């Protein structure tokens, strides 16, 4: 695409890509995948609005709040679950959001929406747990804490159309996969350029939606890029670049003759290059920070609590290697970030006594692992309570190791 072409295209984020037909209350059980997805979203949004309505209501007793929490739970779990509270009534469909997600997932095949829906499921289950805490909360303050947690996870379950991984949630799934295609709508090959109005699909992904110009108003929300192509407006989904990349690779591999959506000169999104763990003074933007003093302290903690299984040289005895080439190869393959590593260490380790170290000791051990993996130290300490932005950059072998790696690829910490 030329520079002017890029300028002409609109970059839009925000609301859902597909126009959403929300089912009304007490709707009959949906039958198609698309209808189920819409029902999940409707149930989530109803749960949020149920809670918010109670929040915005002037009241002088806990009953109304707690009823709202119960109603929200009902919307999420449906009327078959033991968490269902008959007294609060069933405002949504009988299966509830979780039931619908389960039905969408319960198949041997793994369509591309599966990771997104797993994210939805986890967040919905977590929301229910928080809402159950809220119904048992003593005092408004405790209720607010629990409900805030629930709203946070509900927002993650609702998701965002721009993401097509576990963080995409329902909106991501509906914007980027077949779940966003209305039943009966014309479906075309998503690897090819649009020729007629309809939906371009490839391997379960939704690549584009082509709409005839000058008809009705067109909802473009959720599209990553909108372009006028001939007499049509083409809305490219956030996943389009990645899928076209796959199309191109497949076409090269099989020497397919079908027309590609773009000529070879067109900018195809590159696979994201492995990024270094960057040291940041503020530890925002997904970067990781730790100090060498922490790493040194962490070495002693490691010797006392970790070395017996993971080895003095961090290459593993009964447990796996946790530094150097062997570890970083797997970490790259499995997409580990420092944040994921921190979760594993703080939640599951030491194996025989998880959670037994002090928060500062865990941070020191994390710093020791970062240093042993040759990531450079900085001035800001590894936090004892990392926020959601901390350490989301994926781990990979440092191109410029801080220190001299030994034969295992481990940097010594003094």
């Amino acid at each position, binding site marked *: 695409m030329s520079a002017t072409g890029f300028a002409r295209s609109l970059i839009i984020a925000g609301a859902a890509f597909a126009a959403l037909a929300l089912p009304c209350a007490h709707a009959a059980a949906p039958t198609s995948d698309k209808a189920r997805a819409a029902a999940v979203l409707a149930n989530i949004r109803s749960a949020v609005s149920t809670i918010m309505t109670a929040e915005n209501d002037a009241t002088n007793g806990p009953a109304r709040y707690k009823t709202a929490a119960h109603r929200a739970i009902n919307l999420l779990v449906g009327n078959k679950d033991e968490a269902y509270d008959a007294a609060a009534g069933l405002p949504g469909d009988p299966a509830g959001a*979780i*039931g619908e*997600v*389960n*039905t969408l*997932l*319960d*198949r*041997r095949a793994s369509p591309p929406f599966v990771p997104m829906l*797993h994210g939805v*499921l*986890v*967040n919905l*289950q*977590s929301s229910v*747990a*928080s809402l159950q805490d809220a119904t048992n909360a003593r005092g408004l303050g405790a209720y607010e804490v629990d409900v805030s947690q629930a709203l946070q*996870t509900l927002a993650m379950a609702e998701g965002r159309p721009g993401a097509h991984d*576990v963080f995409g949630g329902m909106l991501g799934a509906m914007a980027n996969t077949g779940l966003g295609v209305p039943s009966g709508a014309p479906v075309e090959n998503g690897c090819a350029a649009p020729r007629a109005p309809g939906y371009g699909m490839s391997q379960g992904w939704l690549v584009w939606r082509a709409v005839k110009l000058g008809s009705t108003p067109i909802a473009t929300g959720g599209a990553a890029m909108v372009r006028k192509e001939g007499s049509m407006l083409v809305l490219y989904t956030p996943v389009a670049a990645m899928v076209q990349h796959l199309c191109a690779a497949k076409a090269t591999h099989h020497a397919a003759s079908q027309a590609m959506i773009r000529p070879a000169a067109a900018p195809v999104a590159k696979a994201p290059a492995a990024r270094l763990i960057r040291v940041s003074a503020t530890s925002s933007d997904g970067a990781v920070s730790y100090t060498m003093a922490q790493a040194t302290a962490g070495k002693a903690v490691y010797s006392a609590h970790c070395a*017996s*299984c993971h*080895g003095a040289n961090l290459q*593993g*005895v*009964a*447990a*796996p*290697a946790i530094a150097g080439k*062997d570890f970083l*190869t*797997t970490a790259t*393959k*499995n*997409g*580990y970030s420092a944040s*994921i590593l921190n*979760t*594993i260490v703080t*939640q*599951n380790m030491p*194996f*025989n*006594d*998880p*959670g*037994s170290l002090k928060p500062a000791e865990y941070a020191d051990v994390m710093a020791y692992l970062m240093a042993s993996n040759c990531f450079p130290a900085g001035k800001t300490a590894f936090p004892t309570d990392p926020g959601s932005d901390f350490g989301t950059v994926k781990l990979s072998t440092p191109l410029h190791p801080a220190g001299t790696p030994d034969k295992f690829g481990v940097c010594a910490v003094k």
Partner: protein
Amino acid sequence: MKSNRIKGGRGLVGGVAAAALVAGIAGVAHAGAISNTTPTPKDYANTAASNSTWILGAKNYDNNRYVDIGEITPDNVSKLKPVWTFQVSDNGPIEAAPVIWNGTAYITSAHDHVYAVDVKTGKLKWQFSDNPHVISFAANRGVTLLDGKAYLATLDGHLIALNATTGKKVFDKVEVSDTANSFYTMQPLPYTNPKTGKTVLLLGISNGDWGGIGTIQAINPTTGKVEWKYETIPGPGQKGNKSWSGDSWKRGGGAVWTMMALNPKTGMLYANAGNPQPDFNGPARKGANLYSDSLLAINISGAKPKMVWAHQFIPHDTHDWDPVMPPILFNGKVNGQEMPLVADGDKAGNFWLLNSQTGQVVNHLAVSMQYHLNLPPSLKGNVACPNTNGGVEYNGGSYDPKTNMIYLPSSNECGFWRSTKKVVYIAGQFYLGGAFPKFVGPNTGQFNAIDVNTGVFAWRDNSKLPMAGGALSTSTGVVFTGLENGDFNAYDATSGKKLWSYDTGSPIIAPPVAFTQGNTEYVAVASGQAGNQMLPTMPKTNKGTMLTMFALAK
């Protein structure tokens, strides 16, 4: 079965002749083609009758760890002395018995190293050092000798075939579909179908706490091709699928990772399916979660495996209390009546006796301290016993047909368990929905002798540390087991009197073996690091990882 107690052992000629006599044409073909380098299918079928070999992890397809010997008796066992020790260079725990064949002991270590050692001298003949990527606990439970090769199933999902004489690699193939969460620890179990004469290697995949579902594979030993696979967790439309909420079955666990028992004549396979997952978060997988924590009897003699019966020991387990003991097949007397039986044990500290034909429970006995068995882990945490390493562990025990007793080590450990609100699958990591428990209170063990006839203990011997060293019983009435303080003990099978003890200097979590070679009867056991049995109360000194070979002082 005729006794194989030939003084002087089964040399090359004896082995071929015996195989030819009983095996017929197929046996001759095998024995003739590759001499006596590795056992033939007939040798595998006759493991119970041979006292000069130890080619299956728990001695034979019945897993009884019972050996017919004559020299070592309760009267002279105190004269056992180490003949040699072989120091294992690989740094890690050994959970396996050595494989003994034709004068060679094949020792496998934690990181899939194989050491072929001369039985008489302890000298290394060859060594193969694999370097697998380790997902979790490093363990290997033995090689399988067949067709001139030693088959090794590795921690990164490979099946490697080595030349059994030289240790050189013949082939190396990835056999698992998801290398992020699947690995092998099992000794491949050879099965020759008597109807077709075709041999496959049966392997269960260890993926039960890492987000996989239980799978048994049948692999062609020549090509490495997976002939069939059997999943322990039913998918949509299959019987038992409704015992899982939503699609929780997809990462439901039920891994088959410990030794299976087999009746080679009928093709009935007895496999333990492990715990459901996420291990500690029950609400994420409501229902009974079939066939996790179950013993499955599967007929594998047809083109496709078919379940005959299944018994679930713990419906909806929330403590990682799976049955891991190698199931023991035997015919024994219960209340004076002879019955076809299968013995099993789980990490909740239960010993089970089932009818091996119907799966019905014949006896159930608690062999470890149990507390709060039905209390699921909570967000704030609570105490339940045993701990996840407690109860009956992966080496199980031994059945002695003479005493009609099961000899079974077990552990008393308590844990403080916590679950989490969120549970997310991360490739290559535990899929727990909580944390492995913290230890609470003392950790001890005992060696149990269970009288099958009465269903209760004949005797017990207490230990200050947990016990996971399996057991060995002999026709002369001696029972052996290894302790986690490094002691290797011999007991009188009937009275439980301790007859002999030898300090190997390192914790023992591997089962002992006994066999005859030449004019000598040998007993061997591996010791080394304690692995995931590690406790702060263990001896501080460790003499390293080794195999010690014992014989009577002459």
